[in-house]
């Protein structure tokens, strides 16, 4: 039993792997063999602007984050780098996989931003006029950092003073400070830390905050306008206010109240679930595009002349056919727009439907 299974899987050229996941490796696979996968707009490769629309500012923070992950390179940071690289590749093949890219981009740009804020805040903190000195602090918890900062910012005030004082008071004090220095240098974590000039770091901090604010504004807008617009009620703003196109629900309500309970409705598969839920009628094909041949039958019926189409629909026991036409109000994604896909999908199963027959100039 297992051997048969293994043999079956091994006999296909792609070792039993097909469908949407194979089109990730070979983007041309779907358009050649399974047009229904190619017809879904979320399976197309993304355009460059769609990257900026989706991840906005993160698009240039991600490379900074990748560099930040390399110093130091630990297990966690190498995982993140691998994650972002593979998700960038796959989101480039199928725009729907931008969802996979988003968390990785957020993580990496978070790393980059936090490093940037770290440096800038530190610069400001060390150059603040009221910064507490370490003259009364025990040797045990003196900051090696402050020692270095004082070395780097000689022009500032009181913090510089004790260091200058110390060599001069060496003769009076009993060598505590000198004893401190070697013990300080003996500490294990001694890093050369970067400090930028004060004015530049304040400006950079403000600009980064502003950048994040713009990012938030853009994200909220994208979520509200681009990803929340329900496609069942369409709105348009005209000179006399908001105009609502509720045509879909009108059609479903009409079907629900004015047809018999066992009448079947044939439409393109986009409207299947809505018809089932709102019009409460049986449909021929719906959004669960599981049966390719069935969808191809409906597609063939839509692309055939009336007599042939009538026979196909009759054989499916269909009473009503639902077709969406957007010409009166200018709705761009109606069935006329999807018509070529109906031809392609039908032609994928029924060879008598040939796409060039439906085009004016065959070389289009």
């Amino acid at each position, binding site marked *: 039993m297992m051997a048969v299974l293994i043999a079956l899987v091994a006999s296909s050229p792609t070792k039993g792997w097909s469908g949407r996941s194979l089109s990730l490796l070979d983007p041309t696979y779907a358009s050649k063999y399974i047009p229904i996968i190619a017809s879904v707009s979320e399976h197309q490769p993304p355009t460059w602007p769609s990257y900026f629309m989706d991840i906005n500012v993160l698009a240039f923070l991600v490379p900074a984050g990748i560099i930040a992950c390399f110093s130091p390179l630990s297990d966690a940071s190498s995982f993140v780098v691998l994650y972002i690289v593979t998700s960038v590749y796959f989101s480039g093949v199928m725009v729907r996989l931008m969802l996979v890219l988003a968390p990785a981009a957020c993580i990496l740009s978070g790393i980059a931003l936090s490093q940037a804020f770290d440096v800038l805040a530190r610069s400001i903190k060390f150059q603040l006029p009221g910064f507490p000195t370490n003259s009364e602090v*025990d*040797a*045990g918890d003196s900051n090696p950092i402050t020692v270095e900062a004082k070395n780097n910012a000689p022009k500032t005030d009181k913090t510089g003073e004790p260091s200058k004082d110390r060599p001069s008071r060496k*003769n*009076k*004090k*009993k*060598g*505590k400070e*000198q*004893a401190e220095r070697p*013990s300080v240098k003996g500490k294990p974590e001694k890093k050369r830390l970067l400090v930028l000039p004060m004015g530049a770091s304040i400006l950079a901090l403000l600009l980064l905050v502003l950048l994040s604010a713009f990012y938030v504004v853009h994200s909220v807008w994208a979520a509200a306008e681009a990803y929340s617009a329900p496609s069942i009620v369409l709105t348009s703003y005209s000179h006399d206010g908001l105009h*609502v196109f*509720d045509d879909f*629900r*009108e059609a*479903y*309500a*009409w079907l*629900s*109240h*004015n047809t018999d309970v066992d009448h079947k409705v044939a439409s393109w598969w986009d409207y299947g679930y809505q018809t089932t839920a*709102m019009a409460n009628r049986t449909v021929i094909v719906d959004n669960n595009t599981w049966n390719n041949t069935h969808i191809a039958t409906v597609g063939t019926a839509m692309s055939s002349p009336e007599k042939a189409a009538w026979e196909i629909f009759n054989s499916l026991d269909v009473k009503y056919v639902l077709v969406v036409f957007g010409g*009166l109000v200018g709705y761009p994604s109606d069935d006329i727009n999807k018509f070529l896909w109906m031809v392609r999908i039908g032609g994928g199963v029924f060879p008598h439907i040939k796409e060039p027959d439906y085009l004016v100039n065959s070389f289009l």
Partner: protein
Amino acid sequence: METEMGFSRFALFLFTIALLSSPVLSDLVLSKVDRRIYLTSQIVRYTATLRVENEGSELVSEVLLAFPELQAKNLAYLTVSVNEGKGKQKVSTDDLPIEVVSPKNMPPAVSFYSVTLPKGLAPGDSLTLDVMAVFTHALQPFPEKITQADIQLVVFQDSAYYLSPYAVKVQSLSVKLPEARIESYTKLENTKVHGSEIKYGPHEDLPAFSYSPIGIHFESNQPFSNAQEVEREIEISHWGNVQITEHYKLIHGGAQSKGEFSRLDFQARPNVRGASAIRYLVATLPPRAHSVYYRDEIGNISTSHLWSDSKKTELLIEPRYPMFGGWRTAFTIGYGLPLQDFLFQSEGKRFLNITLSSPMVELVIDKLIVKVVLPEGSKDISVSTPFPVKQWQETKISHLDIDGRPVVVLEKTNVVPEHNKYFQVYYKFNKLSMLREPLMLISGFFFLFVACIVYTRADISISKSSASYLAKQQWEEVQAAIQQVESIINRCLATHDKLEASLRDLSRTGDVQACKAARKTADGLLKDLSKELKPLLAFLQSSPSASQILPKVEDLVAKEKELQERVMTKHSTVVDAYERKSAGKDIENRVALQQQKITALKQEVDDLMEYIDEI
């Protein structure tokens, strides 16, 4: 048309036969009858002014009204009132009681209604009665199926002569049509057409039960909105709101639609293509109606308008699609009204005074169900309606209910807008019952909080000698001891700091005596502290649960002691050196080693303290 006319001719035949055999009823004579029939909407309204004279010798207390049975089946509403005005001024009084009667020896296929006169009609006297009747489904669409482009034509049938069990001296009939376009009408002598009005008559001296069928075939583009079922729920909440929810199932009652519906034609030329479609419905809600919603099964319907002023609130709703003949739709309307407009008190009882039927204008309802939901705890419920309805009681369980709320259900068929009168529901409600709901909520939350308090403070350990309980107690003691050790060590460290400070002072001021004095006090303090430390250490050594922390504590104490010694030696070296006035560098060299050790020890002591802290 053929069948209708055929039947009418048959009825006429029956009536003429009946005429010959009808008895002479009481000696009333109708001296003047003026009838007006309004066909201007889908509801047929009929008014008649009868002048009744008593030509007999007895007091007459009832007057019979007759309607052909086919018409009587469609009769929805009938009122009769006495008209007391003289001449041009007509004043109507209250409605007179009407009963359906079936007297003997009457012609078949006629329904009789008996009107009881309040004071009776003395012999020789005369009386003017105003009769108002409303008929539904009385207009038959003919042709029965039309396309979108056809006009809707309907047929109305009646009699030109007033059907009555009494002889009529003078009578006239006037029929008002909605538009001037009349397809055909029965022409008798004395028939005149003025625009959209047809006048039959006057006819004189007709015997009882005279009947002359007429039919009028005309165009009517009025919306034939017919609700097959309307369920109206009125929910009273004593917190200040009356919530009304109405569910409608509508059908277009005119000529059935055949062929296709072209939205393009309908929108481009609505009066030519689809003039008889139902485009909108208007509802007149009481003033101060708020939170009005209009939705159906699928969701909210956005095509509606609401205007309100101080006398009424007008709601215009458009169904999701324009309704053509035979098309159905269903929707729900809901709104809230302020309680003080509708709930009143009288004689210890409260009563709700509200309109019975739907607020829609010109809507024919086949079956109306009105449910009045009273608050829980209402007793002695009684209903008074202006006309008979079928009623019964139910229970509805809603928010914060224990037993359920009593519901009075009223049902009536064949309802027209004239039925939209006020009715009253009386009930008794104890004022204290109003507190039941807030008390329920308050006590619920109260008990929840008390339970939480009890749970967090109660000692739910089974026995005080259980191993875990004892272990916990011991651990707490150990912790207390450790804390005390820590504070002692902190004080030791503070003393070391003081010594260092004194050294610094020495380097500044050169005062050796002060330094020595500081040394002495420090010595004393340290001795005291080590004395305090001893019993604590002993306790820790003896307690079993401190076993893992004991080594660290001992380590800490040992290190601290060592630190103490080194600080002391350093101090004494420095002071000695000062006394001998040796060079600074010298001093430094001597204490260098000590100093290194001191700092290292200090660090270790700090680490240990932190570690102990964290446990």
